[in-house]
């Protein structure tokens, strides 16, 4: 077949992602997206113009060589494509599923100026799934051992990407995880139907094969302090503990039974598998035929409300104080949620939770809002409409308005610099902190962000740690 002309490439429509039917999937926890077929993937790859200067890469926080891997997909060399991605990304099957590509690589794609951009994320997902399913995840070459040891605190996206880079550079890496399973937010936060845990496990296993050591049940600060890690022979420490301290709204009734933080609700369902109760021992509120509202407009809010729907909620609402346009959630998540029967109530703010004499939630007092002048975030500030209060019945509420920083590292490591929100202050080029040998990245530095931004921070830190290990004078 002769190579396609630019025009022919541009005329291929963006290939649809096969997915479970909405009214079927909202009753199960199986993955929503089913993945491209080989034919669809090659067709989609043929839409790429193979730009001489690929700007899509500028949109990728970890710098995946997007043009080159897509070329290999077009040629049918799926394993070659998988290897190409892995030069820059330790968790491609994860990123292919949860990255907000529409704001990153795909936002830069030249095809996207006039048409729909190339579906880079779906292709990334396809090749990493292809590799895992056909030959198992292959691991890249590792440089000769340097004999240096690095401690990574936290096994979420920032920690895993940093560990993946450091092990390839020849350093020994131990990842310390507070929970009993490795993966951080990928395990406790993001639901099975969006990111199957078997995929996280497979990508973690690949890091283990490379030689990364994992210690679960290790709460750094308590089990060992950071200074003790240095005493134990680690030459550098990367703090990637995530945000991990849920915000509540500080409104009356927030401690009624049936009011959850998104972290607790999702952790019970995802990490502890409460959706399989009583086969698994950990329970969660029985949502069956109940009214459930999730407060917030981010990806976590979408995850929580779609989870509640799958647990049998009669009505599952998103209640958000701004309008649809200001919602930080990915478009795909919002779209999927709507298809699954989630009801969105915009410009509505809770004033108080209402409960019965036994402490159980039974309603919420709401207030209607309108948009005023833009605030510090650049989004128009929601302003209460006077005399617009009303009450709605509610059996369960999930507060998904973000996370503050977890206090354990701060309390046990006072000689690091923190901002007023408890985030660790770093030099953004190297992620180095105020304490020699200690680097930090991910949500504990940035506040709540995305998986891929955390992975980008992990990569930046890994580069700087590598330099530091050969020349400790850089501090």
């Amino acid at each position, binding site marked *: 077949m002769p190579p396609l002309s630019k025009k022919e490439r541009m005329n291929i429509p963006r290939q649809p992602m096969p997915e479970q039917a909405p009214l079927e999937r909202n009753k199960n926890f199986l993955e929503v997206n089913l993945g491209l077929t080989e034919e669809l993937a090659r067709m989609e790859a043929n839409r790429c113009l193979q730009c001489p200067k690929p700007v899509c890469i500028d949109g990728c926080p970890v710098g995946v060589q997007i043009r080159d891997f897509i070329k290999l997909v077009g040629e049918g060399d799926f394993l070659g494509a998988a290897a190409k991605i892995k030069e820059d990304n330790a968790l491609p099957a994860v990123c292919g599923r949860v990255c907000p590509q529409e704001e990153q690589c795909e936002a830069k794609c030249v095809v996207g100026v006039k048409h729909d951009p190339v579906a880079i994320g779906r292709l990334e997902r396809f090749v990493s799934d292809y590799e895992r399913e056909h030959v198992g995840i292959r691991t890249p070459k590792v440089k000769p051992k340097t004999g240096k040891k690095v401690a990574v605190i936290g096994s979420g996206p920032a920690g895993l990407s940093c560990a993946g880079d450091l092990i390839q550079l020849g350093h020994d890496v131990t990842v310390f995880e*507070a*929970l*009993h399973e490795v993966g951080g937010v990928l395990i*406790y936060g993001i639901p099975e139907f969006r990111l199957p845990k078997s995929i996280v496990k497979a990508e973690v296993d690949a890091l283990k094969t490379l030689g990364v050591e994992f210690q*679960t*049940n*290790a*709460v750094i600060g*308590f*089990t*060992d302090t950071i200074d003790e890690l240095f005493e134990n022979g680690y030459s550098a420490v990367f703090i990637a503990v995530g945000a*991990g*301290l*849920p915000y*509540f709204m*500080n409104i009356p009734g*927030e*401690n009624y*039974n*049936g009011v*959850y*933080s998104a*972290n*607790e609700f999702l*952790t*019970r369902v995802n990490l*502890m*598998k409460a959706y399989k*109760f*009583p*086969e*698994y*021992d*950990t*329970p969660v*509120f*029985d949502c069956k035929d109940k009214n459930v509202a999730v407060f917030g407009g981010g990806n976590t809010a979408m995850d929580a409300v779609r989870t509640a729907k799958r647990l049998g909620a009669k009505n599952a609402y998103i209640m958000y104080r701004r309008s649809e346009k200001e919602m930080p959630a990915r478009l795909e998540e919002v779209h999927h949620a709507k298809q699954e029967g989630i009801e969105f109530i915009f410009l509505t703010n809770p004033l108080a939770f209402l409960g019965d004499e*036994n*402490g159980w939630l039974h309603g919420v007092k709401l207030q209607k809002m309108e948009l005023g002048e833009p605030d510090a975030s650049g989004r128009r500030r929601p302003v209460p409409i006077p005399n617009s209060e009303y009450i709605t019945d509610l059996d369960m509420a999930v507060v998904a308005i973000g996370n503050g920083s*977890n*206090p*354990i590292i701060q309390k046990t490591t006072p000689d690091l610099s923190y901002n007023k929100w408890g985030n660790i202050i770093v030099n953004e080029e190297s992620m180095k902190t105020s304490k020699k040998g200690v680097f930090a990245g991910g949500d504990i530095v940035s506040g709540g962000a995305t998986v891929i931004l955390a992975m980008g921070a992990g990569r930046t830190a890994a580069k700087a740690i590598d330099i530091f290990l050969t020349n400790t004078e850089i501090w």
Partner: protein
Amino acid sequence: MNKIVSAEFLAADIKRFVIEAPKIAAKRKAGQFVIVRIDEKGERIPLTIADSNKEEGTITIIVQGIGKTTKEINNHVAGDSFLDVVGPLGKPSHIENFGTAISIGGGVGTAIAFPTAVALKEAGNYTIVINGARNKDLVLLEKEINLVADEAYITTDDGSYGYHGFVTQKLQELIDSGRKIDFVLAIGPIPMMRAVANTTRPYGIKTVVSLNPVMVDGTGMCGGCRATVDNKTVFVCVDGPEFDAHLVDFDLLTKRNRTYNKSEKEALDNHLCNLDKAFVEAVTTEPLHQ
């Protein structure tokens, strides 16, 4: 995996485990807790560390079998292992030489309060222990407490041993005797802790309780263990577990601890049914010996 070195019942349904956990043993201070998970499907159960031995690398926990998981924990014997033990978690007890300190334990709380009583004694306090139980068979650690305490009292609800009455009645007698009491620690069922707080409040005696809410991660990540103290929401796992008894909203704590009562009952009934079934099967499929 954490191996169980020894396991023995102290009373019906209350079992003491010594388990291998060298890192935790080296670090823990009185008042801190661990989270235990017995197997892949198990819940994360927070348990106060009752004692530790740095040299042996072991910690001691004392478990009351109430729900499915705690009953399953108590089916473990020496030589078995727990899948996960994480800690030490929470803030250590604030220990100083207050003067005269009273440590009050109710039920399994007696065992949990014991290490703090030891720490109070070591800090130079004149240490009085009041040890409450429903009846004689449920009295815990009598010998150990007698070795440590300057004065020790046992109360039983039914009068089958020691002082006939509640721990608060004994506490009131001590207060009424006109002795100067500087500090009270109370660990036990919520009604008992609430009653102790109410007893000491009029006298302004500094009183501390250790709260036992439902937890998941135990590191501040989920907020499930929130309680109200001094009209503010706290996360017991990272802000506690010990708080000023006079500021705790015990009513809220009681209600929140009932969140999963229905599920827990279902799980327990299910568990017991399966055990019955297993028992019946074992009996009926056993070959008959002639």
